[in-house]
């Protein structure tokens, strides 16, 4: 077992454990913080995969913005700061069964695939993945259209979110 495998296993188990805590812990702020841990684990996975840019963007976008938004939302939607009542709905056991079934099904499907045991070729020395990625994102021969569509989606989401969450009763825009 090489060092990389050990690192991967440690990261994977930490991430999965954090993921489990996200969906099971009673305290929602803790759940959000566990989510941060899980997302950080994923970021480390990206580093192992040599996708440095993705790793940093993962930290910036997910941890720096999305997780913080979650914590804000959790705090804004609780009248007092304690969690009461059950955190699982009454069908949770069925959800668990379905999740296990999904995992089993995916595992089963993957097993039959010949690309499964593939190992990566060594990472090319001096390969500048970031310039490649930048070019791919904005060159007409690459993915400029999906990229632009994604940016339009972001703007739409931004406007929509502001509109939906804006409370006209105590908003200060009433001129």
């Amino acid at each position, binding site marked *: 077992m090489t060092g990389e495998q050990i690192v991967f296993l440690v990261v994977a188990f930490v991430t*999965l454990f954090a*993921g489990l805590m996200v969906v099971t812990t009673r305290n929602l702020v803790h759940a959000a913080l566990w989510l941060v841990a899980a997302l950080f684990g994923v970021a480390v996975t990206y580093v192992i995969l*040599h*996708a440095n840019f993705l790793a940093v*963007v993962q930290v910036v976008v997910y941890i720096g913005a999305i997780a913080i938004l979650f914590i*804000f939302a959790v705090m804004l939607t609780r009248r007092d700061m304690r969690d009461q009542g059950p*955190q699982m*709905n009454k069908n949770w056991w069925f959800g668990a069964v379905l999740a296990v079934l999904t995992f089993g099904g995916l595992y089963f499907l993957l097993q039959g695939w010949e690309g499964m045991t593939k190992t990566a070729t060594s990472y090319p020395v001096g390969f500048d993945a970031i310039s490649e*990625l930048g070019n791919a994102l904005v060159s007409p021969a690459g993915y400029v259209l999906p990229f632009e569509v994604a940016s339009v989606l972001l703007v739409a989401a931004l406007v929509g979110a502001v509109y939906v969450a804006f409370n006209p009763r105590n908003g200060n825009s009433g001129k």
Partner: protein
Amino acid sequence: MVPLSWYLIFAAALFSIGMFGVLSRRNAVAILLGIELMLNSVNINLAAFWRYGDVHLMAGQVFAIIVFAVAAAEVAVGLALVISVYRSRRTVVADEIDMMKW
């Protein structure tokens, strides 16, 4: 070297965990947390396929980035909806938000 299967199984497991969260949590915010886990597992797959295929083809990373954008949009709109619902209904329990059933 880590074989591709490890990544795929890791992602599948994370996906299932996220799905369990989506299916079972009562709190709408927690459901969104589960969705984030599922999206992340997809991204792991995308990055892994990029690395294990031809690294000069950037489709995997490009789409991982687009998933980031979609996730950000989804969280923004989702949380705005949750807050908006909370404001009018004083609850964020998904089961109690069932006004529109009939």
